[in-house]
């Protein structure tokens, strides 16, 4: 029997009608994974027996009762490996559940399988993984994006119903754009970070990747809310996101920032995004020109703040309490230095060095403090913009999926690819990427994403806009060739 794995609503209907059992969904996912994971390398760990056992206990009356969720390898699930795509955490199993996992379980969902990622969420291609690159289901010679590449590829390739990812500078939205699925980065503080292995603490947020906007809304609703275990989580009521999807775009005012349509951007991306904007206008939305003048400084300040925080966050990986330890260390310092040399990949080392440098004696004011001030300017840009519009429309990424290996030795060009997503993290607000067209590349087709940026805690508005866009366009129904 073929199950409607691309829709939580459809699966719930069948579950409630008694046509299928939760373990049938797990079995169907397993079948897809066994068939296609060798080509995609989206999952890095699975335990189907445990997932089936959990499925058998699932209460299908709950909002996500019996729905399996693929988990990015950076979120702790008790008893499961949590390796962050890194060699340094090989063999590590979490001894506790992340808050989002507790919440998902509370809603009846089953954390099923751990998906690939750039090591410690550092990267935009999923090539920086101990497990090797994950591949884009639309073209396996291309990157799925990153760092939540495994989450996006699993969903887009039909290897997962929905997935959790994490987004520090675009790590949910950019892979969603590259793989042709929906990816939402919630407002900072909306979703608890407890149990999310920190990359850059002041920027990280967990969010859903899904086949459609409704599923993303359902998952977001399940994982949102104040958590006393996370001081940065905000005590604010969680709206019923799924219920606020209807309502269309009439009366909504969208801002289009001139800084986001830059020379050198891929013409197919520009065409698709302009097309989406025109479409929303035809659907009754009002479109206005806006400016986010400090956009050009977002990447520079991000590449101070994120590595600085990361250099400190990753200091705990030292081979003392868990994870890899170098053999026969001469002394403690040798043990640390070799453990970390052997355990970390190049990109992680690069960022640790950069972050250590910008915090080191005499440089704090010139780098970290300065970057935090720039962050203030970026936030003000958004505040000013949201005084005149309800949401902002931009491309998610300047290009469709690039080839694996293409940017590997050029970190700057890789970093510049995050130009449209990073400012959202710096401002701490929310953004969603939805499929808005395709680029024709060498006989194949590559998805393109439209980013809709919302006010802080304005997820309902961007979900509603994205849902209307999705309902009135064909893009999300397209399936990759695998």
């Amino acid at each position, binding site marked *: 029997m073929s199950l409607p794995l691309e829709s939580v609503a459809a699966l719930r209907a069948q579950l409630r009608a008694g046509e299928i059992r939760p373990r049938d969904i797990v079995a169907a996912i397993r079948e897809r994974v066994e068939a296609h994971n060798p080509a995609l390398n989206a999952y890095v760990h699975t335990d189907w027996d445990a997932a089936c056992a959990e499925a058998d206990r699932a209460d299908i009356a709950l909002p996500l009762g019996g729905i399996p969720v693929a988990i990015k390898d950076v979120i702790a699930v008790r008893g499961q490996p949590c390796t962050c795509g890194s060699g340094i955490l090989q063999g590590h199993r*979490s001894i506790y559940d992340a808050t989002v996992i507790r919440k998902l379980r509370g809603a009846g969902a089953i954390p099923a399988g751990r998906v690939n990622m750039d090591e410690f969420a550092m990267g935009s291609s999923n090539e920086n993984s101990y497990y090797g690159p994950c591949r884009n289901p639309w073209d396996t010679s291309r990157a799925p994006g990153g760092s939540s590449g495994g989450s996006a590829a699993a969903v887009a390739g039909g290897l997962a119903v929905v997935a959790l990812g994490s987004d520090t500078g675009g790590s949910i939205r950019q892979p969603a754009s590259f793989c042709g699925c929906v990816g939402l980065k919630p407002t900072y503080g909306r979703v608890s970070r407890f149990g999310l292995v*920190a990359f850059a603490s002041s920027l990280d947020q967990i969010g859903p990747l899904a086949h459609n906007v409704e599923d993303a809304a359902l998952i977001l609703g399940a994982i949102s809310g104040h958590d006393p275990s*996370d*001081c940065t989580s905000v005590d604010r009521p969680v709206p019923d996101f799924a219920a606020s999807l209807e309502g269309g775009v009439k009366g909504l005012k969208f801002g289009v920032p001139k800084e986001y349509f830059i020379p050198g951007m891929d013409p197919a991306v520009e065409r698709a995004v302009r097309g989406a904007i025109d479409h929303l206008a035809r659907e009754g939305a009002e479109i206005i020109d806006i400016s986010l003048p400090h956009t050009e400084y977002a990447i520079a300040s991000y590449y101070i703040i994120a590595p600085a*925080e990361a250099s400190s966050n990753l*200091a*705990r*990986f030292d081979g003392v*309490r868990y994870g890899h330890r170098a053999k026969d260390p001469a002394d403690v310092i040798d043990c640390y230095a070799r453990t970390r040399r052997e355990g970390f990949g190049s990109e992680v080392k690069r960022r640790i060095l950069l972050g250590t440098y910008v915090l080191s*004696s005499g440089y704090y004011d010139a780098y970290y403090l300065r970057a935090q001030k720039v962050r203030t300017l970026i936030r003000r840009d958004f505040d000013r913009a949201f005084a005149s519009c309800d949401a902002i429309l931009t491309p998610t990424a300047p290009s469709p999926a690039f080839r694996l290996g293409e940017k590997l030795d050029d970190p700057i060009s890789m970093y510049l690819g995050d130009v449209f997503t990073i400012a959202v993290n710096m401002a701490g607000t929310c953004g969603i990427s939805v499929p808005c067209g395709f680029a024709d590349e060498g006989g194949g087709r590559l998805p393109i994403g439209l980013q809709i940026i919302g006010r802080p805690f304005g997820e309902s508005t961007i979900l509603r806009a994205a849902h209307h866009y999705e309902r009135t366009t064909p893009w999300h129904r397209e399936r990759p060739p695998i």
Partner: protein
Amino acid sequence: MKTDYEPVIGLEVHCQVRTRSKMFCGCRTGFGESPNALTCPVCLGHPGVLPVPNREAIVRTIQTGLLLGCQIDEYCKFDRKNYFYPDMPKNYQISQYDMPLCRGGGVTLDRFSFPKDAQDSPEASARKRVHLTRIHLEEDVAKSTHFDTTSGIDFNRAGTPLMEIVTEADIASPEEAFAFLTALRLILVQAGVSDADMEKGQLRCDCNVSVRPRGQKAFGTKCEIKNMNSISGVRRALAYEIARQIEVVSAGGRITQETRRWDDDIGQTSTMRSKEEAHDYRYFPDPDLMPIRTTDGLLEEARARLIELPGARADRYTRDLGVTEYDASVLASDPHLARFFEAAASGASNPKGIANFLLNDLLSALASSEKALSECPVQPADLRELVGLIDAGRINSKQAKEVFREMFETGAAPAAIVRAKGLEQVSDTGAIEALARQVIGAHPGPVQDVRDGKASALNFLTGQVMKLSKGKANPKLASEIIARMIKGDPLVR
């Protein structure tokens, strides 16, 4: 010509804040549990965990700051101090860098905080104030045990709230350092903010010490001494180190800046780390923790818990209650004793006498029966009454001791005991005169001796009167009456 050198000392005191749970997680704080029994993903620094600050530790730190006269800023924050060490679960310590909870303040050194052998020195009566730079709140590290080729780490202590109290380079002698630590410890314990038990590692102290020719402004090169586990150890270590530095410098040598370890058994400091690695802690605000606004309830709560400092209390006892300086310092140094004393002295005409009886008779009775003050069978009001009976001349001091013994055994009120035992001292002049007449008639020899000016003979006759009265006569009165009668007071015959 021999140059005269003076030491310059500054202290960094780490003190565990008394809380039930750790600073950033819910694990119990405790001592003596089996290794790693008091740990969780947070205090083990597992991937993905986040800290949540213990409000109580913050209030107690502010409380300490208020007691020590510190300035409490409206905004404070937590920072990360980054350095690698196996006893630190995250390889950074959550601490406070440029916005600590408390700034400034100080501790006044009272005479009785000095070591006994130094209490009569001029510096002990100078009432010097040692100034503080700051007090900040951080998390304690784990405990390491060292074996032949390995070390073992127990994270039970890791994450215990820790106040770091930093003094200015204000301390001029090992004795002042001793007095500072004694006075500080007393305040911390009395305020209930810390148990400050040095043996349990709840109070730890690092000393920075240098010497310079007396009169010179510039500081000499300093050394840091670690590993002292008693206040007297600090004094000994400083004395040794100061002598060592003076010897080096006066021989024309140079002090190398280094960290030295104190070995209390052999009484010497020795080099611990000579090539001091340049510290580069890469402090930055901890992004996992929100800023602290002290005016939002915290200060208010800390203020409500303020206690009278022992020094101020002792001053009040001497000034307002006439208690001797020594007795006042003893009473003020123990909050339970002070509370008992104040209850007993309330409304009393002779607080000084109460203090005296309390510190001598009551404390020794408690000691010999191995009872704590809280188990004392004698109530403060009864002690007041007993001293009142003595002062009124209704019982003499010998009788008072007997009454007290009975009070301590039975818990009965002194008046009742005096009545039951028929102990009431006879101060009735007529009754004593009758006895005195009897004694004078019976002992003509001693009577003549009194006339000849022999004081011991008067004591003998008084003793005879006491004997006849079965000890109830007021001895002072009896002695006066005998003397008057022998001198031929016409009223007698």
